[in-house]
């Protein structure tokens, strides 16, 4: 049936989870392109036949006219499907710049048509040039900020520690307010504990009593 392959492409897009991408289906894509050219050949030959019979192609309504119309419309439908396929994929691909970054991981790269790789690069460049014109980085701060400082209790004597522009002394059981980012290495080693987590933990415990 004419147009079936093309609709298969769209079904792939449609069945894919929003924002996700399936590998570019070059087999089916190329088949549809071949179908288009085949439709065109058929269309041209029917028109030629009508011309050879000295029929007015504008007004004649014979079998050949309707045959030509079917090929013409099938080609148009295929074109719509191909365009929709590429456009929808391009929308997902450009969203990767915001969600992933300027360099796509290998497993995504291999899902892309070569023109899609180029499109991603060009589109990222457009975002980059907007950001440098505006002198602002829009790829950070994707979620609302939280208090960057946390209160911590020191569990082990750590001693003098340099944090950015100043140093502080972390002695056992002392309480400090530090930037969350500065504390991560110590927390992960259980040298200090996040008081908010401690309090939440205690609250959760006391809640169970109710």
């Amino acid at each position, binding site marked *: 049936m004419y147009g079936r392959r093309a*609709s298969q492409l*769209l*079904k792939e897009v*449609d069945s894919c989870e*929003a924002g996700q991408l399936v590998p570019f289906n070059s087999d089916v894509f190329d088949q549809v392109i071949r179908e288009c050219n085949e439709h065109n050949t058929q269309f041209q030959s029917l028109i030629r036949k009508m011309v050879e019979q000295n029929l007015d192609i504008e007004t004649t309504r014979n079998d050949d006219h309707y045959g030509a119309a079917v090929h013409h419309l099938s080609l148009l439908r295929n074109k*719509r*499907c191909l*365009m*929709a396929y590429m*456009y*929808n994929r391009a929308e997902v691909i450009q969203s990767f710049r915001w969600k992933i970054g300027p360099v796509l991981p290998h497993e995504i790269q291999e899902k892309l048509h070569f023109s899609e790789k180029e499109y991603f690069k060009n589109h990222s460049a457009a975002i980059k040039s907007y950001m440098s014109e505006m002198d602002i980085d829009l790829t950070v701060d994707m*979620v*609302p900020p939280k*208090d960057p*400082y*946390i*209160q911590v209790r020191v569990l082990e004597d750590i001693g003098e520690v340099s944090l950015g522009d100043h140093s502080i002394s972390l002695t056992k059981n002392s309480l400090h*307010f530090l930037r969350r980012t500065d504390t991560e290495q110590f927390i992960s080693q259980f040298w200090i504990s996040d008081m*908010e987590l401690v309090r*939440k933990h205690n*609250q959760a415990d006391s809640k169970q009593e*109710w």
Partner: protein
Amino acid sequence: MAGQSDPHLSIFSPSEVEFVAEDEIVEIVPNIRMEALNMICGDFGPFFPQIASKVPLWLAVALKKRGKCTIRTPDWMTVDRLTQVLDAERESPKEFQPLPFHYIEISKLLFDHARDDISDAYLVRSLIEDIRDVRFHKVETGLETISGRTHAVKLKNLSAMEVNIVRPFMVRTLQAFYKHDSPQMIQQADNTGSRPTPVTDRGPRRDLRRSLVSSRLGKNWYLLTVNL
């Protein structure tokens, strides 16, 4: 149909709604002396020990976390007031009681960071949860009453987080009715003749609205809605 899943339906994330709520003004009682803060979001302070001061919620929480103040529970967050609100919510099935637009986020932030400043915290929390439940039930019931004749919905006193949660359902429902009630759908029904016209009591309006047909053809959806 893919064309109906509009990505714009969930437009604010819960953390964004909370971000907005953090600008609500609350009262704190500092235990320190501090110069006035002349911030981008406004001027606050100066602060003196034991003298109440009004600041945005995010600032209150930051000071509280640093052990520099207590946060005064807002008037509406007391057992008495909330009990009244809950009773009233239950008595009036079609109305929402007036509460701060961000009552859910404010109470959550206060429970998370200033629980020890809230008297009867446990009771207050369960009252707020009950109020939420009653209100959500009302929203659900309200959704069922939407019909093709609904061209506007008034939701007096609905809060920010409630808006955010109900939005996808509400918009999808209204849009579906609006779409099926649209002139080209009616026209199609007219043309087939066999099916009853969905809206028969509109008379002249149908013709008047027919001129809008072309502008409303779902052409913006084409890329997504090639019939499969």
